[in-house]
């Protein structure tokens, strides 16, 4: 058993409990978070338009190659699901990444522009995200429906499929919009560790 995946799974179990809390206490706990946007204004990450049906936080990083390789897939999902009421929000949990660097990154990789910074990893902790890239899906009620990898392309560091065989995030969003039980990822996300970014 290796250290990093074990740590992930432990975190995961803890968060499954906190998610159950969020389900009951969503109105109280979620709005307490305020994250800086790229103009350093504090915003509520859960604040969205009235017709939003789900929010996807995408934890990403400017310098993480695995995270960056997902940009076209994230764009594809955004284009497919934004018209169906899903809001995609890139979240940058590395405090070393400046708003200027993030602006350049959003442009270079053509990410959705509504990015937030999470320099103290408050949202990462709240949502349970430990890796870039990792996705977290919330519904309108603030219930966390999905936490994990975008797809199964990366099996582990250094072990990669030529193409994904399972599109976990896409399946989760389809289920969310259909009002069906949301399938959970069967393996941890692979990429850079958010814990390493802590100052």
């Amino acid at each position, binding site marked *: 058993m290796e250290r990093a995946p074990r740590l992930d799974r432990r975190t995961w179990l803890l968060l499954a409990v906190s998610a159950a809390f969020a389900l009951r206490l969503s109105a109280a706990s979620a709005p307490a978070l305020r994250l800086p946007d790229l103009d350093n204004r504090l915003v509520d990450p859960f604040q969205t338009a009235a017709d939003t049906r789900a929010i996807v936080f995408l934890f990403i990083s400017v310098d993480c190659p695995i995270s960056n390789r997902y940009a076209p897939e994230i764009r594809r999902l955004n284009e497919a699901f934004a018209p169906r009421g899903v809001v995609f929000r890139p979240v940058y949990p590395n405090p070393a990444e400046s708003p200027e660097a993030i602006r350049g990154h959003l442009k270079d*990789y053509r990410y959705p522009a509504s990015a937030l910074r999470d320099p103290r990893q408050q949202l990462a902790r709240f949502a349970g995200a430990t890796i870039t890239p990792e996705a977290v899906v919330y519904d309108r009620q603030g219930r966390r429906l999905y936490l994990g990898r975008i797809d199964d392309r990366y099996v582990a*560091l*250094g*072990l990669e499929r030529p193409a994904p065989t399972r599109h976990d995030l896409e399946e989760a969003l389809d289920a969310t919009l259909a009002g069906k039980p949301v399938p959970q990822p069967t393996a941890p996300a692979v990429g850079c*560790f958010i814990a390493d970014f802590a100052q």
Partner: protein
Amino acid sequence: MTVRFSRFATASGVVLAASIVAAVPEASHAAGNRGSSPGVPVEAVTFSKDIAPILFARCAVCHNPAGSAPFSVLTYRSAKQRASLIASATKRRFMPPWKAEPESGDFIGQPRLTDGEIDLIQRWVEGGAAEGDPHDLPPRPRIAGGWELGTPDLIVSPSQAYTLAAGGSDVFRIFVIPLPTDRVRYVRGLEFHPGNPRVVHHANIRIDRTPASRTFDDEDPAPGYEGLMAHSAVYPDGHFLGWTPGQVAPLLPKGLAWRLDPGTDLVVELHMQPSGRPEPVQPAVGLFFGDDPPERTPLMLRLGRQNIDIPAGEKNYTITDSFVVPVDVEVQAVQPHAHYLARDVKGVATLPDGTTRTLISIKDWDFRWQHVYRYVTPFTLPKGTTLAMRYTFDNSAGNPRNPQRPPERVLWGQRSRDEMGDLWIQVLTRNNRDLETLTRGVRPKVLAEDVFGYEREIQRDPASVALHDDVAQVYLQLGRSAEAVAHFDASLRLNPQSAATHFNLGTALTVAGRFDEAIEQYGAALRLNPDYPRAHNNLGSVLLQRGHVQDATAHLTEAVRLEPANVEARSNLAVAYAAAGEYERAVELVQTALGLAPLEPLATLLRDHLELYKERRTKR
């Protein structure tokens, strides 16, 4: 009378992967041993004292601010930002990327970590990845900016950048770069700069002394081309070329350079991984020349099978191959090559006395790390030693690297969805006579495998001109001229308006002794392209053979006019002049031909002719 033929005009063919290894400083620290001693408390592990020596020695060659890797390990600040990642990647032995098991001996530039070093890194991270006292830091490693081997004598690049798309699967693309030189040069070193290290994962490099690769590249409007490497794209004179991150082959010792002729192209196959945004890719290659021709030439022994046929779902498909060396050989380096499905890769030498030596063993083959493994201490294997390889492949759905889902039957082929299984072994012989013996022994075996691969490719793609051209050449090299004629004929039927195709068929017919038909084909080539020096040369040669000295002289004169550096044409024209009694002109032609540094055995022949012509004779 001697008839010489120019090389063929078109071709395509077999690809194999290459790469290069360079010296990395040994880790100058005691940390590796300390890591396994239980007495050291976790708190004691710090970056400055314990971890930096490992990272500087093993990782910084790529992980520096200008390096090919994504982050730097030169400062605590940047290493700390990736501490868990470093722990995880080293524990899995994904990093440093060194796949050879230690049993195969010491290789140059080996960054493999010891178990103790890996353990120490884990404990550093578990203990909070502390910095420690910066005074404990070892000296920073010297990171070469620019060219590591010195100032290149020649730097070449593709004429324009290729744009790699933002997403999708890995891309394999071949770039053909002319090497402008007005005379024969001897190459002592080649250094590859990826240009865009974010996306260039490795480079297979060959040279092509024919226009075959250039033709392929020209047919694709974008920079480079996607497809098969030409059969004429080869490792030069038994030397590995290529690049994997962090590896630069040292300069060759004096006397071991490889020969670069004018008109040669560099053939660079890039393995690129999309980065998430469109990326320009324009590598650069620096060449380092020496003054002296090689005194010794190594030979590449290639073991491997081209009858690979792996059923869908097969978990444990094995290929084996072997060769008994007929002379003593000194083993310099090995390079295994396979694609995504290979799992276990092994090469073993069994000496005549029954003792064995592992040449290479890789238990978790990863297609993406195509190293050349150069032995720190080359070793001699006596005549009668069996070189053997055994590779296993996993074509089941349980192999995450399997490109087909669900798995499909996989055959031998150059494309990444096909499979290959080769082991290249670079050896030196005691002398040139042994080299000839060894070449004669191994060549038919290798060409027979090539025939297998080509015939299979042609079954899949019977309308490929390039495949017919290539296999025809292989048949010619095997002395099977009838099959060569048949395949060049097939090529001609597919491509009747090509002067080169008529020329090729003419050449095979000449070798088969069918001179009248050959003359017809050369004539057809010249009707399509009157300025075709090699067609003039070969036609002149055949006419000379048939005793038509005057017609022969006209065509050979035209060949020399169109291509003044063509040694064969000069040699043939000299023969024609001598046959007509014009010895002064014959002597002058042979002298200029000798000034063009011809290869053996042509050089010896020319020197013999020079003596004869000076004595106004054509034979002894």
